[in-house]
């Protein structure tokens, strides 16, 4: 049923840690603090939270061994440390971890499996090089790419971005326009790792390439950071202190074609990403023309173009011109505020959190000096073909 859950679940409160290079404390300890703060923000007691949904992925290709409570935090770990006895705890395994976790929470609340669900995302920046590996043997699918030196997400996105640039005549300056917008907005956000540190196009262009056409600034900075959101049914949310923000609909991508590991041809992204978008609009009951706060994912800068196009904000192949022409300048009237929350490039590698935080703060009227007049938002995460997105609304419709 396409309308399942539409506007029946709302975000009732949230909390977020500062986003920093390193907490100097175990990730779990910070997550417990942030979870308690989020529950209090929602006007609830810890013992009222009976559902926990999250993804605990440590998103690196490097040789880091995740330890629950130290470098990752699973829903069960958090529930136990908060002293809760959850009726429902579930982990999301796919890409687009935050939209996937929201989907689990919505389903649990609509079916009555839980009454108040805590969704968290806890990210850790491990010591050493983030994506570097000492592996000297390749097994399984990796044997077809590692001996060639195709390893990790940098060549992955470099190849897709290069395909876009060549096919549509885009340039490094066009990519830089995405990054400059993200950093401009991120520099105004007090909790961001890039607070007070905007980037101009000359600095961007002076940065050495890593995997052409991608440079360091096209990649979000690995960080330590935690965000927690409390979700409940729309009806219960009426009695809580903050204005509810409703989940109008959600969608995830996939299945994609079977490819070599991290081989993301542009046409796969478009083809499956368009299906992600179709599912999203069908589920939410709105389309791009009704969305005034599209928070697009930018863990790598080219994703912003791809989301603009698959979601229908731009014709295919046009997003680079749209962005470079000021189309996503969130400071001008008529600009589409795609990165008004700073995104990942302007906050740090928070894996969909900045997009969701911005939707929540703006639509609940809690954005303070950054408050905009908006009604319907979209929070995207990951690539359009593997990831997901959630439509949020200030009103039930």
């Amino acid at each position, binding site marked *: 049923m396409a309308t399942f859950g539409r506007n029946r679940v709302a975000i009732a409160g949230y909390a977020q840690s500062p986003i920093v290079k390193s907490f100097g404390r175990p990730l779990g300890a910070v997550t417990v603090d942030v979870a308690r703060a989020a529950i209090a923000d929602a006007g609830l007691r810890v013992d009222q939270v009976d559902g926990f949904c999250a993804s605990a992925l440590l998103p690196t*290709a*490097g040789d880091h061994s995740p330890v629950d409570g130290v470098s990752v935090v699973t829903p069960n770990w958090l529930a136990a440390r908060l002293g809760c006895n959850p009726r429902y705890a579930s982990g999301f395994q796919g890409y687009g971890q935050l939209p996937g976790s929201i989907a689990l929470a919505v389903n649990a609340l609509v079916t009555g499996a839980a009454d108040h669900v805590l969704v968290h995302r806890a990210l850790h920046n491990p010591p050493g*090089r983030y*994506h*570097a*590996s*000492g*592996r*000297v043997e390749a097994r399984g699918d990796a044997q*077809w*790419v*590692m*001996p*060639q*030196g*195709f*390893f*990790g997400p*940098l*060549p992955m996105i*470099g*190849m897709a971005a290069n*395909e876009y640039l*060549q*096919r549509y005549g885009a340039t490094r300056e066009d990519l830089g326009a995405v990054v400059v917008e993200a950093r401009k907005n991120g520099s105004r956000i007090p909790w961001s790792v890039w607070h007070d540190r905007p980037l101009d196009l000359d600095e961007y262009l002076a940065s*050495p*390439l*890593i*995997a*052409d056409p991608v440079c360091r600034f096209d990649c979000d900075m690995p960080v330590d950071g935690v965000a927690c959101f409390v979700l409940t049914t729309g009806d219960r949310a009426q009695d809580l202190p903050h204005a509810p923000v409703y989940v109008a609909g959600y969608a995830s991508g996939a299945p994609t*074609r079977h*490819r*070599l590991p991290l*081989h993301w*041809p542009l*046409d796969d992204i478009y083809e499956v990403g368009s299906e992600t978008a179709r599912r999203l609009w069908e589920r939410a009951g709105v389309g791009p023309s009704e969305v005034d706060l599209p928070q697009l994912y930018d863990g790598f800068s080219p994703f912003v173009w791809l989301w603009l196009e698959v979601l229908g904000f731009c014709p295919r192949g046009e997003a680079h011109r749209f962005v470079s022409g000021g189309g996503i300048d969130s400071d001008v009237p008529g600009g589409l505020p795609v990165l008004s929350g700073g995104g990942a490039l302007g906050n740090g590698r928070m894996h969909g959190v900045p997009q969701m935080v911005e939707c929540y703060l703006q639509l609940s009227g809690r954005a303070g000096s950054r408050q905009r007049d908006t009604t319907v938002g979209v929070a995207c995460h990951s690539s359009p073909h593997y990831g997901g997105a959630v439509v949020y609304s200030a009103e039930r419709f």
Partner: protein
Amino acid sequence: VVRQAFLPGFADDLPFVLVDVAIGGHDDLRLIGRLLDGPDAPLRLGAAVSVTFEHLDEGVAVPAFSLEP
């Protein structure tokens, strides 16, 4: 063009070029390999390549590509 290595053994090869090749023009039959023409090769989408092999060690050969003239 890969300019930073994330695996051991590649540092001396930097920068190197990776290509996404549709074998025999079949879009679903794709292989990623190194292009041996160097980082400044005039590489464009749709360029024709031929297959070759890099002999890395005794009994170890990895498929690679070079631009068709």
